[in-house]
Each structure stands twice: as C-alpha cells, then as structure tokens.
C-alpha cells in the first residue's frame, strides 16, 4: 500500500494542532513549569510551520528564522526558569493559583 504524498497543508495542520495543544496546556495547567513547556510546544509548532513553508517555497528564509528562534527560545527558557526559581524562593510554590496577589 502506498499513501499519497503528504500535502503541505497537512503538515501545517499538524503544526497547528501542536500549537493549540500547547496553548491548551497553557490555559488549563497550573504548574508554571508545565506552562513553560507548553510555550516550548507552541514555539516548536511555529518552527515547523516555518520549515514547512521553507520546503514548500524552496526558500531559505524560513530555516534561517528557525535557527534564530531556537536560539532565542533557549535564552528565553533560561530566563524564564530563572524567574520561576526566584518566584519559588519567595513563595515556595510554582502554582499559578498562588500568584494572584496582583489583581483588580
């Protein structure tokens, strides 16, 4: 059996699926670490979209972008985790339910 070649939109749809799974996680989880992971999922989905278009359009710009995005994501994670640790130091928790002091 041979499947038909994958249409690019399927790949795009797949990355969208990952993106929204990440988004869903960001919305429903309370653990900051998992929320950070969800963001990573979203970024990965974006990367895939770039690469897919890059492939589809025979253009290099997409892949170049992904390169920078990966780098930035790494830096961002580092800072983000640093913030989480700082938060944990003062609050002893990483639960978003606990950080609702600022409101109204």
């Amino acid at each position, binding site marked *: 059996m041979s499947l038909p070649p994958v249409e690019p939109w399927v790949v795009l749809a797949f990355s969208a699926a990952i993106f929204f799974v990440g988004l869903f996680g*960001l*919305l*429903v989880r309370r653990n900051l670490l998992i*929320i950070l992971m969800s963001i990573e999922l979203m970024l990965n989905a974006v990367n895939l979209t770039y690469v897919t278009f890059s492939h589809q359009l025979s253009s290099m710009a997409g892949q170049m972008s992904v390169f920078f995005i990966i780098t930035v994501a790494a830096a961002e994670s580092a800072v983000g985790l640093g913030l989480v640790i700082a938060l944990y130091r003062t609050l002893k928790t990483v639960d*978003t*339910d606990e*950080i*609702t*002091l600022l*409101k109204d």
Partner: protein
Amino acid sequence: MLKLIPLFPLLGFLVNGLWYALIQSRPGAKKAGSTVTGGLASLAILGSFIVSVKVFLQLRGMPEASRVIEETLFSWIQVGDLNVPMTLRVDVLSTLFTMVISGVGFLIHVYSIGYMSHDETPGKFFTYLNLFCFAMLMLVMGANLPILFLGWEGVGLCSYLLIGYWYTDDEKASAGKKAFIVNRIGDLGFLLGMFLIFTTFQTLDFVEIRAAFSNSPTGVLPAGVTFETLSAIGLLLFVGCMGKSAQIPLYVWLPDAMAGPTPVSALIHAATMVTSGIYLVARLNFLYSLAPTASVVVAGVGAFTAFMAATIAITQRDIKKVLAYSTVSQLGYMFLACGVGGYVAGVFHVITHAFFKALMFLGAGSVIHGMHEEQDIMKMGGLRSKMPQTFLVFLIGWLAISGLPPFSGFFSKDEILWLSFASMKGSKVLWAMGAMTAVMTAFYMSRLFFLTFMGKPRTHEAEHAHESPFVMTGPLWVLAILSAIGGFMGIPPVISEVFGAHDINWLAHWLNPVVPHHVELNPGTTHAMEWALMGLSVLGALVGIFVAKGLYRDLAKAESLKQKFAGVHNILTNKWYVDALYDAVIVRPLVNFSKFLWRGFDVLVIDGFVNGLGRLSAWTGNAARVMQTGSVQTYAIMALLGLLITVGYLVYGLA
C-alpha cells in the same frame, strides 16, 4: 430750562443722599434734623415748582397749536433702528402734572418737616422724597415711552423704599416689596405694550406716534396698523396702569402701602404716582380712542374697581386704609372716565383728587400725629375740639370727595358720571356702578369723618390729642383752599350756560391740543338728562352722608347693623379675601413649585443625571474589574477569545 425741573430734586436727592449715606449713617454719627434736611429738600422742590410755573406761563404765551417745549439732553439709547434720546417735553398736559407734582409735592415736603421731626433718619426720608419727585417729573416730562418708563419704575422704587421706610418692621418692609412686585407685573405689560408700539410704529416718541395717526392715509388708522393691534397695545399698557394705578386685579399693594409715613401716602399713593396710569392713558388718548376693546376694558375695570374698593372702604377701621381704598376707588373713576372717552374728565379728576386726597391724607397724618401714631378710627372721636384746624380742613376735604357742590370733587366726579352715562362708549351699567360708588364714597367718608372728629373721645389718646404745628397745618390750609376751588377750572358747559357764560371750561380748552375734549355722545342725550343725573348724584351723596351720620353718631346702631349683616361685613373687612386668594392660588403654589423644581428637578433630575453618568462610569469600571482576577490563565483565555473573534471575523468575513 426744562431740565431744571427734574434737576432740582435730583440735586436735592444727591446732596441729601450723599450727606446721609457718607456722614450721617456712620455709626455714632450725629443725624441731621428734619428741619435742615427737609428744608433743603423743600427748597429743591420749590425750585421745581417755580420753574414749572414759569414753563406753564411760557406755554400760555404761545399759540394754542404749538404749546410744546422740548429739550434734548443727550442720546440715551441708540441701537439699530431704536433711537431713544433723553428728551424732555412739556406740553399742555404735562405742564399741569408738573405743577401738581411740584406744587403738592412742595406742600407735602414742608408738611413732612413737621411730621418727621421725631424721626431718627429724616435725611434718608427726604432723600427718598426728592428722588421720588425727580422720577415723577421725569415720568410726566419724558418725550418718549422709555423715559416715561424710567420715571414709572423710578417712582415705583421710591414707593418701595418709602413704604418700607421703617424697615425694622417686617410687615412694613413686606408691604414695600409687595408694592414693587405687583407693580412689576404691570410693568411687564407696559414693556410689552412698548415693544408692540415700537414694532408697529418704529418709534417710541409720543409725538411721532401721534404723527402716524394724523398722517394716516385712511384718515383713521396709520398704514399697516389694525384695530386689533391698537387694542393689544392699549390692553398691554393698561396692564401697566393696573399695577401703577392700583386697579383690579393689581390693586392689592396700595392698601398695604399705607405702612409708609403718611406724607408718603399723601404724595405718592394719592396725589401723584398712582395717577400716572391715567396720565399714560390720557397721553395716548388718540390710540385708546381707536381701540374699542381696550376702552371697554379700561372703563369696565375702572368702574368695577371703583365699586369694589368703595365696598371695602366701608368696613375698614384704619384711617389710612379707608383713605387708601378710597384712593383705589377714585382711581377707578378716573379710568372709567378714560374708558368712556372722557380723558379730560379723567385728568380733571386727577387734579382735584390730588388736592383733596392729599389734603385728607395729610389731615389724617395730622390726626395720627396728634394721636401719637394711633390709626384706628374706633379709638378716636371728638377730635373736633382738640384739633380744630385739622377738623376744618378735613371737613373741606370730606365735602369735596363726597361730591357736594361747589367743592372740587363735585365737578370732576359729576363729569365722569355724566360721560359714563352719555358717551357712545358709556352705558347704564357703568353709570349705575359709578353712582353707587358715589353714594358709598359719601357714606364711608362720612363714617370716617364722624368717627374721627364727632362724638366723644373714645380713648385716652383721643382725649389728649393735640393740634399739629403750623408747618403741618399751613400746607393743609393751602390744599384745603385748592380742594374747595379747584373744581372751577373745569366747569361743565351745562352749568356755565346757566350763568350766562358760554363755555368757560378752562381745563378742556387748555388740554385740547393734546387731549381733545370732544366726546362722542349717545344720540338723544340732553341737557335735562345731565341736570337730572347731576341732581341724582348730589342726592345720593347726601343720602350717604346722612345714613352715615345716623349710624355713627351712635355706635350701637352701627354695631347692630354689623351683627345683622355679619357675613357681608366679614367679607368686606377681609377685603373680599382677595389677598388670601392670591396667596393661596399664586404665591404659595409658586413657592412650593419652585422648591420642587429646585430639590426635585434641579438636584434630583438634572444633577442626578449628571452624577448618574459619573456613577455609571465607575460602576462599569467596577464591573470590568471583575475580569481582572489576577490569574494568568484568565487573562490568557480572554486574550484568546479576542483572538478567536478577530480571526473568525476575518476568516468568515472574507471567505
């Protein structure tokens, strides 16, 4: 020269006023006495009188058709098509008024020196009095309506100030306020009438308005003017007269105005100010005679006022109140005269009334003065012997107002009654009311006279009453003489014929250039009828006098009669409940409604709306804050919802 007439009292006002306000009024400062201040004021007004007489003589020396003296001082208001120069004009009509005002005014000033000798602030009093004379003179000398109005309101102001002269008494202050406000109602009519004149004739000058009539293409009406317009003008101006001259329904202020010092009542509320309504109507006689509706109203209101005021006067106990209602009643006569076309008769009555009513008021003042401020006639009696001079002059006044020949009141009143019967515009009803009023006038005046002077003193004060000084009785005598002989200036032809003279009605001839004396009579009126009516009215007066004499020589009779007609008496003592009615129907509802407008509408509705908008904003803010839970996820999902809507709108909107 004309400007000197008002200038003298104005100067008097300024000198006395500044002197009083800046120096005498300072706390602890010595007050100047009434002799100095009153002397000053009297001199000022004497100056006016002298100039007035000179002007009168000058006019007499002129040919009859051009008896006008005019003087433009400066341009007062000039805007667009409105041009109101400050012009004084004296013609045959106003010269009479200036003389009466300054003449009677002078007498009253002199009288006041005595009357106010015990007052604390005579400086203030004479200041006001001079100001009044100034305003009154402006009123009659003004060449156009706005100047007349200037005087009109000016005298109203002085009336206000003088009625409330003893301001520490709340009631007196209220009386002054009432006078001003009621007059203001009339003034609104005056103003509107003035506007209508301006839009109709494009001018406010009397001569120019009159010229519009005399130059009229049809011979009757000026171009583009209808009878309705004239009637509207007449009625609106008459509203002004109702206020100033105390006609129904705006007469209520005048009786209250007796709160002022008695000379004030004599000068303002009897002799001069209250007659300015008649002056106005007489001045615009050419207009009124072409305004049938207005004339009917003027005559009707006049007759009715005369009648009703007379009924009230019957039961009043305050000597000044009786005179006040009498004044209202006499003013009604004057309007009755004007309404039926007898403008000359109206003016005639103004003059005679000025004499005898001033006389009676001053006489009453003398009585009050002698009685130590007692005004209740029931507490008087037998003053004939205590105050012989006052008694004598009062007697003359009494006879004059009762309409007994040959005193002045007889001539003027009789002419009015005759015209109200015989004029084309007259009717039997008007005459009947006038005649009944005449009877009642004789009755209540006699009542007053008998209760005051005849019989025995009924109180301690009456027993110890004293005669007034010469400074007061002097003017009384002058007025008494005038009251006695004043009527001869207007002897009706029907009488003069008897004595063989042709037509010696001086007044009518004198006034003719401005106020035509010709009155359109009903066909079929004869001299015999005039004689008959004359006799009837004299008879009526005599009846009134004798009934009063019968009743009030012995108070018990009056008392029993009072018991018999308690209901009527009640109504009359309470002045037909007009004041109460006004209070209940107009004053109170207005105050309450205003309070509602303030607390209910202004504060609750408008401000409530405005503040409500503010509160709505704050409420919205608080409601929107609910979303701000502090939870990251809430924020995220709100943002995502926004994104969903945006993307959905775009994708579905564009697909």
